[in-house]
């Protein structure tokens, strides 16, 4: 299909609207009679509200209402307890929203929120994850529905018998989702019907959640998410802003706009859990793995269990006769962790791919070669052949492009003046999945076509990719096709998450287009509009359970200042095998975005919790550092021409997450190669490396 639209670097359809500012985000739609909501966070870690004094707030100019558990509209007990906001006086973590002030201006709402006086009864709290926390337990499953523990062979015996062993523990801090557009909602009630413009990755699931909470038929609710300024997973389900805005709008009987501040994004919207990961690897003297064990510890809140699948990556990545993975969790008085770009796989790969590097050194084998030796055609977890696995091809092509050959493996072997220079590699994999979706395709008398699906474009270029797929499926030039997405009034579809958006939506769009072509078999434009619809529920559900994964390899060169410990990136190169690439421009953007976020994880980001307050204190982008442009001196992403017929009709694997998985390990491995110092706790900042010139 190289002559079609798929595979071409079309600029994104909404680009002009975005750069000229006409693209509207959740709180940018003009609304008559609008009011503004401001969320009030709890100022204690754990306790119970004993009194809310709203006198001063209500006396403040412009303030219309203070909505709290004593007066808020009642909601049903939905499936997500953390969304039952303003229903009860209990406080489960600091920052939990306990009230919303509604006013005629944003500033008045903010000032009103400051004037709400809340008294609490408080109790002792526990907010810090440790590997010996008395509350550690084994969850029933890990996100989304993987077994908690797995075991093959006899790890303990296999490990004990091996000539080469590595036993290391890695730690990662809390990472916070900071999409450019915050969680934000405009909510309007009209005659018992609810219209929300929400910054979400899935308008369909948001509608379902609101329907449950407000006990309404889904048809009474419309959720619009035409443009979304990023999400990284944090907007994968309905979150506090949409519930608060809907509650507030119902309470004041006027439309309400509510956007969280940057500070308010640190906590209640979901963050990447801190992890403590012990990895044990054993190998023979040729570097062939004989035993692998990955024990992961992470945290959740007291109101909801979110068990991150940290060690799941290790189940399918490399083969060994004896393998074990475990997850343990502790409930702390903290906000609930949630999805953040490759939840589980991302921190898990940091640990495993670092440990593999340590093994390569221990056994004296090049880390690229070591990974190649431990490749497997059969998924060690499922026992079935992978539908496609091009890890080795990624490693080989990456090594060639990067100039890996001839690398001196000794740490501290390269120096340029004050800079110690090192290189590192890591593998990457991420599941290639799809979820059921529906779509319609319409032929119009003027020869044009309309394709409708409630997909979401969170900035990835999804709209453009679907448009390209639709054009080819309809067999027409893309200029003939109009695409409508981002609205729950459109045919329901999977959310934009888990790297399965394009796969899921393309599937439904292709089936709808095929159905339409069937209807139009006679050829020529119809006299009236002709519409065909498709629902992939059965087809997706009937897919055989095969191991489907995307793969990649990261190569990184860093320099470390021998005196100050500053780490700088010289270059970062990734090669990926991710099925068919629909749009090279947006695909590249996704991949280098993921790689940059991995760099950010390795060197910069860290949520600093003050355990006395149960709160992250560096809760803005001036103090929670994210990698900036100046930190990314050279970054390149490539992909293999991969074909896998066991995926979906479009032949695509997701690209949203494969770029971040393994990236932090490649950076950390390069830092070790440069300095001889292995930092096993991210981020690798100068205070951990200062004076490395004094270290052997």
């Amino acid at each position, binding site marked *: 299909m190289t002559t079609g639209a798929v595979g071409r670097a079309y600029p994104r359809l909404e680009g002009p609207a975005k750069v000229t500012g006409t693209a509207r985000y959740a709180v940018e739609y003009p609304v008559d009679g609008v009011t503004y909501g401001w969320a009030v966070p709890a100022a204690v870690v754990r306790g119970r509200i004993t009194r809310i004094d709203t006198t001063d707030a209500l006396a403040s100019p412009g303030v219309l209402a203070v909505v709290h558990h004593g007066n808020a509209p009642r909601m049903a007990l939905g499936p997500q307890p953390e969304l039952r906001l303003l229903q009860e006086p209990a406080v489960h973590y600091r920052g939990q929203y306990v009230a919303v002030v509604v006013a005629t201006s944003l500033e008045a709402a*903010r000032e009103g929120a400051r004037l709400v006086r809340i008294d609490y009864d408080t109790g002792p709290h526990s907010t810090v994850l440790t590997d010996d926390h008395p509350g550690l337990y084994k969850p029933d499953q890990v996100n989304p529905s993987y077994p908690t523990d797995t075991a093959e062979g006899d790890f303990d015996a296999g490990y004990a018998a091996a000539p080469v062993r590595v036993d290391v523990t890695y730690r990662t801090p809390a990472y916070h989702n900071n999409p450019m557009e915050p969680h934000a909602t405009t909510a309007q009630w009209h005659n018992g019907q609810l219209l929300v413009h929400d910054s979400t990755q899935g308008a369909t699931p948001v509608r379902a959640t609101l329907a449950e909470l407000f006990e309404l038929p889904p048809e009474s609710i419309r959720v619009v998410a035409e443009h979304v300024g990023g999400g990284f997973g944090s907007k994968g389900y309905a979150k506090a802003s949409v519930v608060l805005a809907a509650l507030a709008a119902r309470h004041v009987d006027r439309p309400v706009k509510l956007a969280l501040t940057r500070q308010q994004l640190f906590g209640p919207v979901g963050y990447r859990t801190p992890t403590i990961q012990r990895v044990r690897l054993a190998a023979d003297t040729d570097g062939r793995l004989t035993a692998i064990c990955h024990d992961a510890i992470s945290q959740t809140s007291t109101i909801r269990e979110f068990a991150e699948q940290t060690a799941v990556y290790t189940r399918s990545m490399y083969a060994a006769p004896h393998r074990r993975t475990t997850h343990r969790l502790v409930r702390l008085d903290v906000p609930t962790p949630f999805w953040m770009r490759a939840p589980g796989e991302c921190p898990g790969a940091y640990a495993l791919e670092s440990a593999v590097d340590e093994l390569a050194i221990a056994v004296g084998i090049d880390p690229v070669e070591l990974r190649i030796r431990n490749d497997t055609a059969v998924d060690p977890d499922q026992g079935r052949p992978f539908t496609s696995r091009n890890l080795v091809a990624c490693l080989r092509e990456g090594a060639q492009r990067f100039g890996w050959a001839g690398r001196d493996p000794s740490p501290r072997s390269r120096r340029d003046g004050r800079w110690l220079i090192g290189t590192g590699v890591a593998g990457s994999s991420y599941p290639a999945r799809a979820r059921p979706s529906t779509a319609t395709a319409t032929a119009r008398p003027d020869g044009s076509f309309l394709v409708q699906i409630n997909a979401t474009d969170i900035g990835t270029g999804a709209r453009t990719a679907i448009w390209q797929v639709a054009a080819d499926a309809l067999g027409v030039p893309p200029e003939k096709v109009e695409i409508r997405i981002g609205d729950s009034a459109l045919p329901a579809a999977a959310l934009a998450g888990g790297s399965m958006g394009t796969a899921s939506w393309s599937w439904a769009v292709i089936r709808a287009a095929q159905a339409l072509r069937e209807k139009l078999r006679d050829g020529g434009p119809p006299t009236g509009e002709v519409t065909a619809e498709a629902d992939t529920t059965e087809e997706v559900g009937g897919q055989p359970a095969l191991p489907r994964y995307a793969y990649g390899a990261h190569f990184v060169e860093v320099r470390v200042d021998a005196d100050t410990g500053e780490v700088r990136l010289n270059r970062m190169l990734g090669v990926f095998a991710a099925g068919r690439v629909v749009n090279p421009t947006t695909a590249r953007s996704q991949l280098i975005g993921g790689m940059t976020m991995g760099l950010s994880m390795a060197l*910069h980001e860290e949520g600093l919790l003050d355990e006395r*307050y149960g*709160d992250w204190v560096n809760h803005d982008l*001036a103090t929670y550092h994210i990698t900036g442009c100046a*930190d990314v001196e050279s970054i390149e992403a490539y992909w293999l021409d991969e074909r896998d017929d066991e995926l979906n009709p479009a032949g695509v694997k997701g690209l949203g997450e494969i770029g971040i998985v393994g990236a932090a390990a490649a950076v950390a491995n390069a830092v070790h190669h440069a300095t001889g110092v292995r930092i096993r706790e991210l981020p690798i900042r100068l*205070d951990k490396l*200062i004076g490395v010139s004094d270290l052997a």
Partner: protein
Amino acid sequence: MRAFRYHRPADVAEAVAVLTAEPHAAYLGGGTNLVDLMKLGVQRPDVLVDVTRLPLDTVEEMPDGGLRIGATVRNSDLAAHPVVRRDYPVLARALLAAASGQLRNMATTGGNLLQRTRCVYFQDTSKACNKRKPGSGCAALHGQNRDLAVLDWSEQCVATHPSDLAVALAALDTVVEVHETDGPRDIPIAELYRSPGAHPERETTLARGALITAVRLPPLPAARRSTYLKVRDRASFAFAAGSVAAVLDLDGDVVRDVRLAYGAVAHRPWRAYRAEEELRGRPFSPEVAARAADAELAEARPLRHNGFKLPLTRAITVRALTELASS
């Protein structure tokens, strides 16, 4: 945020009069710090006196060879000024190391000197801070204090001064011109800032209502050999983990004169007099520079998370001076 009035004075005297008369007024320069703090509820002025239109936006070469910089000169303009670049590279580099291009385009000389600490506890009204609310305690002392002071802190406050510009100006023995109700006054920059002591809320020696109108750099031919080194956790747009402003005057290889100031270590830009003393009159070597830094840091009291600032400050002292010595 609180509703506030906005006032644009016609001249300096009016600005000072308004600010003195109003109990809760604040000067507005570039707004790059104050407006953030107002949104956060940390500062709650009821009148903003916008001084950016006052005729204080020029850089003048003085008859004595020094330079007089108006208080409303923008940081990016000052960094690009040819005389600054030629005669005071330490100042140009400090300015360019600060903030982001967008902020430098807005920030003013006077405002930069009076910016508030970025201590996260100061910036969060839900946590204890003696600087923000005297008597409430210092949450930072036993909290997340990686970014905070190692020198001259008190039990009441461990915050650092955030300005890069002020560190360079401290090394240059800058005179700060202020206008008070009684008229103009000169304050040596070494006397502008206070140690936290028992009253960290009092950050400067300025009288209520005093307006910085200019800063005056003395003629300092040695400053042509000067530099500013800043180390931070990412390559741009971050406050210093450590910084040093250095001026070195060599006679052969003997240190005739030296000026050193540190950022990120104390409640104020830290002029390193003791290190200077160690260096003056000695043949320069990196070892001498390291000893000088150690002498300056001998009384440092690192907090739980910021001990790294000592080797870091030492390392950048050696590097800055060594670079200057070999330039």
